[in-house]
């Protein structure tokens, strides 16, 4: 009796202490729990996906650690400071991209990395955060929805870094940067008629482009859209990942028992195609659980964005939440054969330092925007 009461009160006390600590650290408990669950799930899967490589799991945990540090630091920074720093971060990013492109030209072919001695670092990753920050900064003092002239400037702000990344060439990242920037504009209330107009123009452009394309170019586009036509080339990845997911069934083959993954039929099993490993080993239920966790994280993040009280915070927060979902959807869609294969990792689960750190840094910014909201006057 006595013991139980004591342990019960101890638990309650521990929870209270933790909540206070999180509050003091400007972290959002609900979001942290969601992120922690996804990341833990990822580590469990990674152990199997890497072929029982404990080293890989430890390195992935280290990536998470680095990401958490970035998140903690950014959560402490005041949104006003972040906003003021946005254009500078953007400029630094542009300069680094130019430098990387320049080195690439002088050096050997494609270049995405900047070797800082201790760690190699991809300037295009910065742009995933810097572009929405810059767009949100630009719109912060302007009336919404954005006027046509602001729209033109925004498009230029997005196009410059995207163009530089395309030159690297890294089409996947360029597309993600463009999507992040566009999401800010959409969340800023871009008029429906403009959205519709752009959609129609895009459709017409694609139609014209198709009509004037050579046969081999058409074939290339078709292979990109439906890779299963090229069984041993582009189609190999997607065919193997569909076999992995499909053969997993409802309950999966069991942890470390996925033959597609363990016998290496599945390419890039611990990075871009880890979603298929989950599908094979944990089945439909395992994937549903993962999607549920992601949905929870996105919902919480969107809620936090809505709670913020100025334009910069809202736009940036909303954009961060939605880009997170876009990453999930693109990766899951590509691995399950809904979308063409583009190199986008599964957020917080795929093995890879840059992506992990950038994502957690983004959530750090979101927490800063959210936890400092009462301090921002309006």
């Amino acid at each position, binding site marked *: 009796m006595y013991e139980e009461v004591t342990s019960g009160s101890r638990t309650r006390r521990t929870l209270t202490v933790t909540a206070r600590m999180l509050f003091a650290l400007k972290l959002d408990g609900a979001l942290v729990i969601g992120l922690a669950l996804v990341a833990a799930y990822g580590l469990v899967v990674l152990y199997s996906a890497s072929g029982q490589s404990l080293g890989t799991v430890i390195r992935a945990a280290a990536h998470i650690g680095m990401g958490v540090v970035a998140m903690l630091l950014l959560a402490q920074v005041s949104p006003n400071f972040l906003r003021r720093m946005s254009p500078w971060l953007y400029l630094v990013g542009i300069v680094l991209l130019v430098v990387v492109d320049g080195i690439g030209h002088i050096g050997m072919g494609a270049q995405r990395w900047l070797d800082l001695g201790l760690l190699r670092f991809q300037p295009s990753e910065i742009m995933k955060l810097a572009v929405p920050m810059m767009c949100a900064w630009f719109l912060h*003092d*302007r*009336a*919404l*929805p954005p*006027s046509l*002239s*602001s729209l033109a400037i925004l498009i230029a702000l997005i196009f410059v870094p995207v163009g530089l990344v395309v030159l690297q060439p890294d089409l996947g990242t360029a597309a993600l940067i463009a999507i992040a920037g566009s999401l800010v504009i*959409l*969340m800023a*209330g871009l008029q429906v008629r403009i959205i519709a107009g752009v959609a129609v123009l895009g459709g017409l452009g694609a139609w014209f482009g198709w009509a004037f394309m050579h046969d081999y170019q058409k074939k290339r586009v078709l292979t990109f859209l439906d890779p299963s036509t090229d069984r041993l080339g582009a189609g190999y990845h997607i065919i*193997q990942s*569909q*076999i*992995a*997911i*499909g*053969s*997993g*069934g*409802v309950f999966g083959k069991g942890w470390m*028992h996925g*033959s*597609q993954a*363990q*016998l*290496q*039929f599945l390419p890039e099993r611990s990075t871009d195609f880890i979603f298929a490993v989950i*599908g094979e080993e944990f*089945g*439909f239920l395992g*994937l*549903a659980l993962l*999607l549920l966790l992601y*949905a929870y994280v*996105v*919902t919480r993040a*969107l809620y936090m*964005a*809505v709670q913020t009280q*100025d*334009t910069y915070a*809202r*736009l940036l927060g*909303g954009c961060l939440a*939605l880009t997170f*979902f876009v990453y999930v*959807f693109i990766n*899951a*869609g590509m691995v*399950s*054969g*809904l979308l063409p294969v583009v190199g986008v990792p599964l957020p917080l689960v795929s093995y890879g330092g840059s992506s992990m750190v950038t994502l957690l840094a983004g959530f750090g910014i979101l927490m800063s925007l959210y936890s400092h909201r009462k301090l921002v006057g*309006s």
Partner: protein
Amino acid sequence: MLQAVRIKDHWKEQRLFERRVLVAGCFIVVLTLALIGRLYLLQVTRHSYYTELSQGNRVRTEPIPAARGLILDRNGKLLAGNQPAYQLELVPEEVPNLNGALQGLVKLGLIEADSVEELRRTIRSRRPFDSVPVVLRMSDEDVARFAVRRFEFPGLDIKTRQTRFYPEGQLGVHALGYVGAISENDLEHIDRAAYSGTALIGKLGVESAYEKQLHGGNGYREVLVNALGRSVQGLGELAPDLRTQAPAAGKDLVLSLDTNVQRVAEQALGDHRGAVVAVNPNNGDVLALASMPEFDPSLFARGITRSEYAELTDNIDKPLLNRALRGAYPSGSTIKPVVALAGLTYHVLNPDKTEFCAGTFHLPGSTRLFREGKGGKHGWVALQDAIAKSCDVYFYGLAETLGVNRIATFLAPFGYGELTGIDISGEKPGLLPTPEWKKLAFKRPADQIWFPGETINFGVGQGYLLVTPLQLAHVAGVIAGRGANFHPRLVTGLRDANGNVKPIAPVAGKRIEGVADADWDRVINGMVGAVTYGTAHVSGKNAAYSIAGKTGTAQVFTVAQNAKYNEKTVEERLRDHAWFIAFAPVEKPRIAVAVLVENGGFGATTAAPIARQVLDAYLLDADGKLKAP
């Protein structure tokens, strides 16, 4: 400017943002549902389909080739067996650059540059995961040379495989045939699955005709493989039930051939181009089937190079030609016993009536002169002497009396102009000419007429008539059996893995009917005369058994009307072909033989001694006494 004065309405913007978040939320729900729908389709609806694919991914069936059946002679002596050898094999789907790999092998001296094209076509036509042999028999030096460079050749590996070897070398190659690499052409006729893992296939002779029995049934072994196709162990929990099926070894063939007789036949032919076929008239067993020159069958089993093959095909002596089955020559005088039988059976010939031979023959009302083949004159001859001394004039008259149609009708059941039905493929039917045949065979109306002179030539086995040595051995057998007719055969039994021999029954053809026993005796007596006092008496000397025989000389080119054939002045390859047919012992024949020596001149001088050696080899024991039957 207008825009600058637009007033920022925070409350309105808050609402706007919230609406947008709501729309975004709807998009998120729709997209997530699409994703879940897709996953449901893959994991629930199509689950069994993908399970099967994943099963196929990790389990690969490796063939276990069956041991090819052995080939034994009638006494159990090994003629074709198997021997382990190093073989270089290539798995097409594991070779990133096929052309580069083949060029690399050329540089290493493992394959010849001009065989690359053909090899590549063969490789392309195989299934991508089948192991295709590239070099069939590697010497130790080849193996060493490849081993140090192996890293340059992904997808190529040295395997130890059973290959064919022929302990007697070239002996009997035209009967045995040979095995060679499976070609693009072969692949169209065989079940590819049954031949995966097998490098060799029978190409000719018994090896080809009994391919199905010799090949047996391949077994297989299921192995767990990773994505690179490498077999993996120690991942037991990923392995489903892996099955193994042991191969069913091919059947051994028991041949009718007698190695000893075969060797004697080949040695007796020596450097001549020619053929010897010996059969048992009582059941059609082929005791010897020799065609010279020969070639080495192991060249093909180890992968013949282009230059070696060219050497064989360009050889003026045509070693690849199976003269016993495919060499078609005029029969010469060997036809006379059969024509004599025709005359007796149609009752147009009085065997005891003598005719005068002055060395030449005229058709009534014609100035055309038919000569005695060998020149000279025989004087007064009756049937027995006409056969024994091979009197052409006697048979010119008989042929004229019989006429072409009766001769052809009588000859046909003996097998002239028809396949003998031997159990290996490739034999030619020869040609039994008739006026009907001539009408169809020639284009110009002037050539379509059958001339009376052609009947005269036909009666002594010249002109259009063509026979193969196998056919004449068969004819000799039919005479020996007094009309008993058996299809020649090389394989008399199949031996299974337990050593039980399942005999194959002899195949009887249609018996020659309507010939009186006395007429058989008369003709056979003529043939006995040929070997005792007639054309071939030298070859019949001191025989421990009785022999019946008949010489023949097949004209290679026609001697001009007023010219005389002089053997010495005619260039060797234009000389006549020499024939001899015989059987023995006459009372109860055990062997019938036909010998052909290309450009051998007269049958008696070159062909008959060879036949005598073959008869001796089969009938006599080591002490020179007649063996018990």
